[in-house]
């Protein structure tokens, strides 16, 4: 069993066809200073599914995502999006960063932030037209933030800021949605709103990848998981990859035995 697990953690024995995967990563290693944050990670995201990236604090969850997107540099590794180099596929990716990563004191309104989602479509000099604004308002509506359109972004609560970020991603009309800890520190209403939007995206056939920290909700929200602790621990459908053993491996001593048992029961 352990042996099987150990060989599993290295690579997926039969990786799905790379060309079909919305996001495939091979041998990704990222280091901060002299310490690897992510070591030789492979990941193959299944199309049309919701995948959670989980692992303990500092396990390289966000780093994997950021390195795949080229936000942080990597030491080695290859990344393909829909089977092609990522730079040719930027228009198909929507990324929702961590809320803490931006300056909320920036002089801009909610609607302006959502409109950033259509900038790519506009190019450098394309004019912002009524239909873009209508689309942005529609996206705000989907996350329940329509009436806040004219607010300065610093005046929003954490949950509201997160929903604005999601609305911006929606405005991008992407095929692959990558979210970095969207549920961190948000209220229950926001969490509900976000998850229902994500589920509707999946219903449209989009692929969603979420860096997630709350083990209790994994089985409710996601179909696939990717467990990481500097290295890949497990990858696959929740029922197979999200088990007591894989969690034990990923979290090690950091997860109390009782917690693991509880989760194991939840997993079934």
């Amino acid at each position, binding site marked *: 069993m352990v042996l099987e697990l150990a060989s599993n953690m290295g690579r997926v024995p039969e990786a799905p066809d790379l060309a079909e995967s919305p996001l495939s990563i091979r041998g990704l290693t990222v280091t901060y200073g002299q310490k690897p944050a992510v070591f030789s990670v492979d990941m193959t995201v299944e199309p049309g599914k919701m995948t959670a990236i989980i692992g303990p604090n500092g396990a390289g969850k966000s780093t994997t995502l950021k390195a795949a997107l080229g*936000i942080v540099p990597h030491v080695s590794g290859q990344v393909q999006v829909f089977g092609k180099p990522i*730079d040719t596929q930027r228009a198909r990716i929507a990324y929702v960063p961590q809320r803490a*990563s*931006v300056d*909320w004191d920036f002089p801009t309104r909610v609607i302006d932030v959502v409109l950033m989602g259509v900038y*790519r479509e506009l190019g450098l000099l394309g004019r912002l037209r009524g239909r873009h604004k209508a689309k942005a308002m529609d996206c705000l509506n989907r996350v329940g933030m329509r009436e806040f359109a004219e607010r*300065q972004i*610093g005046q929003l609560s954490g949950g509201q800021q997160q929903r604005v970020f999601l609305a*911006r991603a929606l405005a991008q009309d992407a095929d692959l949605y990558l979210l970095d800890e969207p549920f961190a520190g948000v209220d229950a209403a926001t969490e509900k709103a976000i998850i229902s939007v994500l589920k509707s995206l999946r219903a449209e056939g989009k692929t969603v990848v979420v860096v997630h920290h709350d083990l209790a909700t994994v089985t409710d929200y996601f179909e696939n998981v990717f467990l990481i602790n500097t290295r890949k621990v497990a990858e696959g459908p929740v029922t197979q990859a999200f088990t007591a053993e894989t969690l034990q491996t990923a979290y090690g001593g950091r997860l109390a035995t009782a917690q693991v048992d509880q989760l194991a029961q939840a997993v079934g």
Partner: protein
Amino acid sequence: MSGEEFVPLSLTPILIGTFAAIACALPGNFLLLRRQALIGDAISHVVLPGIVVAFLLTGAISAWPMMLGAAGASVVAVILIEAIRRLGRIEPGAAMGVVFTTMFAGGVLLLEQTDTSNVHLDVEHALYGNLESLIWLDAVGWSSLLDAQALAHLPVELPRIAATLVCVAMFIGVFWRALKISTFDEGFARTMGIRVNALGMALVIVAAIAAVAAFDAVGSIIVIAMFICPPAAARMMTNRLEAQVAWSIVFATISAVVGYVLAGYGPLWLGAFDAVSAAGMIATVSGIILALAAKFGPCRSRTGAPMTA
């Protein structure tokens, strides 16, 4: 005041001062929001070694080599700051302090070592410029604005700074959205395929060009003041970037015009005879505007940014 007096003596300095102020304030808005406000300070210091080296190489005071030299020095400074910050793992403020003081010191030393007795090149000039001397002697009144012959003898600084202003404005206009996104949310900008680092460097180079052209006409004090004070005051007036930039242009213009008028005529009103430094006065006025905005501006205090703390 009559046109005969105003047009030749005051019109061109006021225009030059205003254009220079706006050319600096425009990129200043983005530098401010990127927490790079002091890049303007650094640039304005390293302009001196740049022009001294250009002078040494060409042996003459001529505009283009000096502007190239100054722009080159700015780029060198920015690269050095970035290199020291990364290589030495030193906070940006300290890295900046190391670079611009050293380059300025090098410039002063070079200047002292060089025989500049027959040219107008000294540290004081570099600091305060000589806005007052940029007069239009061929003008006889407002009618000269239509007189081709008189227009041909406009101080060369005026068309130069005007062209610079147009370039700066075009850069900001063309890259407006890219600048806005990459300033607000760098990670998101990268995922959209925006070359964030290149854009950041381009912004600094544009700021340097503005600084150099302004410096040539008005000296480096105005440059630092205009990079920071009008955008900072504008930030207290509004929560929208578009409005902030508009306010900064207004404030830059007021500073330049009021500052020049106060410097030129203020002492006369007080019964003294000679004018005081226009550059210094423009910086002072911009400071007064900033103080007023900081005290009374509608958006002067930080809005809640719970996660950035």
